[in-house]
């Protein structure tokens, strides 16, 4: 279904015009921009958080990092950056929004995704590769994956423990809105693989409308064989395929 790792990205079909928002303290914006532009071969721009328009973009990525120093709570200040009104507008008209790590925290703070991300269960900042099990392969972010497929992906966060009340978590599961869970190399769920202690091992979710995505792992940091297994590329290829399908 997907191209071989390292193969040049196809340039035919609809373009996926992508904005990567840069907050003061973002640190993965360049990687996200690079993957869209150089791995997928799609137009991508980095957009400063003081900007107020995102009308010309199809996809908006809120990248990893420590926006505004993570002061008060991770994402709490960033959600009031001028760009966020444009992000909300983009989301409400059905545009794709992808929050990675700190971007996921910003989206929960902004109320664009439910739940919250809290201090890891063992307090330590965790920077390592983990395994993610794809729980729903029918979304725009996962359509190039198979259900149950295991992706090895880096994480790097201190506040990635996903929490929500039981009714929310039940709803997310029932509606197929849990996209990824932390798992073992063979896909088995076990507390020791749920490295940050997230409720029900949740690593990534999608909103009710299916266009706003958040995940703690960093697919953009391992999207090419030169930096690892390159499996993060699948998620970006999914997004691109979803535009081709719609075109």
């Amino acid at each position, binding site marked *: 279904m997907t191209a071989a790792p390292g193969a040049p990205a196809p340039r035919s079909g609809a373009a996926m015009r992508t904005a990567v928002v840069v907050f003061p303290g973002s640190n993965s914006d360049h990687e996200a921009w690079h993957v869209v532009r150089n791995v997928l071969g799609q137009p991508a721009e980095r957009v400063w958080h003081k900007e107020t328009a995102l009308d010309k973009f199809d996809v908006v990525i809120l990248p990893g990092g420590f926006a505004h120093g993570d002061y*008060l*709570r991770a994402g*709490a*200040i960033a959600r*009031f950056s001028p760009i966020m009104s444009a992000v909300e507008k983009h989301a409400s008209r059905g545009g794709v929004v992808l929050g990675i790590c700190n971007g996921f925290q910003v989206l*929960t*703070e902004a109320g664009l995704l*439910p*739940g*919250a991300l*809290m*201090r*890891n*269960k*063992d*307090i330590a900042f965790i920077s390592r590769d983990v395994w993610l099990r794809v729980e729903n392969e029918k979304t725009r972010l996962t359509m190039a994956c198979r259900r149950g497929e295991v992706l090895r992906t880096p994480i790097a966060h201190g506040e990635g*423990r996903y*929490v*929500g*009340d039981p009714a929310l978590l039940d709803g997310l599961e029932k509606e197929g809105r849990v996209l990824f869970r932390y798992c073992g190399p063979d896909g088995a769920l076990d507390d020791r693989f749920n490295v940050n*202690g997230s409720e029900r091992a949740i690593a990534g979710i999608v909103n009710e409308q299916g266009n706003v995505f958040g995940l703690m792992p960093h697919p953009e940091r391992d999207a090419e064989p030169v930096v690892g297994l390159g499996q993060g590329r699948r998620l970006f290829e999914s997004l691109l395929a979803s535009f081709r399908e719609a075109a």
Partner: protein
Amino acid sequence: MKGMKALVYVTLKPSVLDPQGKAVLHALHALGYEEVGDARVGKLIELSLTGQDKDGAGKRVARMCETLLANTVIESYRYEILEER
């Protein structure tokens, strides 16, 4: 000019696991304070306010808490408004 001070206390809801509080609890036990049953770590935010309308200030501080200072998904807040002299 005389103003007011708001003391805003932001704490994790009881249902939310507090790993930081657990670490503090274990440290206190290690120091021999066995009587400590639990520890929860929260935040105290001090705001200096202009004006002297305590009721009005309270309403605005509550809105500040709802909007920014607390994430009500996981945190509770309470506040006191003090007259400064």
